[in-house]
């Protein structure tokens, strides 16, 4: 009984820690702080991003990609999440959510779209790190074009 209680407490605190990591990551993106954004990833992260390439391997390659992505979003950043689900056990965790991404153009008009995100985490030397990340938009099977106007 006490073991079960202890285990539940551990998982609850792991989930809280993942939530804190996620909040820090969101804040880093909103402030366009690439160095801080990259501090949340494991050195050997494997990322499937929404644009350009099938995958990015390693924090250096993914960091360059993040910089390119941030340079495409002008004005104040839009980066908010919804439908968040976190599951953690021991030193492994995963989460998924919907993520509104975008910026604001020179006329003050918001340009954004909803993406889907999945992430895998491992606790490495006592600190949680993102070891896998997957961003995407669905596409229209007829036109073959990505769908940016979808709402949750």
């Amino acid at each position, binding site marked *: 009984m006490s073991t079960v209680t202890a285990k539940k407490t551990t998982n609850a605190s792991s989930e809280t820690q993942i939530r804190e990591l996620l909040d820090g990551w969101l804040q880093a993106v909103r402030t366009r702080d690439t160095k801080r954004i990259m501090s949340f990833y494991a050195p050997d992260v494997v990322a499937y991003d929404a644009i350009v390439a099938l995958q990015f391997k390693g924090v250096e390659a993914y960091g360059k990609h993040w910089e390119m992505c941030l340079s495409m979003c002008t004005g104040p950043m839009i980066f908010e999440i919804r439908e968040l689900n976190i599951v953690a056990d021991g030193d492994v965790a995963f989460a998924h959510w919907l993520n509104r991404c975008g910026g604001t153009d020179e006329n003050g008009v918001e340009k954004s779209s909803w993406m889907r995100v999945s992430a895998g985490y491992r606790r490495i030397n006592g600190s949680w790190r993102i070891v*896998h990340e997957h961003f995407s938009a669905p*596409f229209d099977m007829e036109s073959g074009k990505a769908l940016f106007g979808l709402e949750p």
Partner: protein
Amino acid sequence: LKKERDDEMTQGSETKDKAEIRALLEERIVALRDKDADLALSGYAADVVSFDLAPPLRHVGAQVLDKAAIESWFSTWRGPIGWEIRDLDIAAEGGLAFAHALNRMTGTKTDGEKIDLWVRSTACLRRTGRKWAIVHEHTSVPFYMDGSYRAAVDLKP
């Protein structure tokens, strides 16, 4: 010595989990080859949340476990559907795991169109008792930022 034995046991157990998850993910190779809708759906939890290639943004539970929809999709293909798994990486501990891989879907549609498509897949799993089940799945292709916003269906690893 005790510590070494514990490490070995932990590693042995992790390997067993990973082997079970790999086997579950490889069932799709058979399910698509044989167009077996029951097998294609057997690995999912009842409350699975799926982010798929086609809209909407999010498919949940019964929207994913729709046997008629899978069979209808199977009927748009001539002959077997190929499904290859490459660069599969699995992290598992206790009752949960996540895995990611590049997958190649190949075959011929009934209208004669040849399909050879690489997609990225992420699967998150939980174990209830002895059985692993997929509680979250994310399948996608990236899109081009060349102004066309075309889905990148021609990329190769």
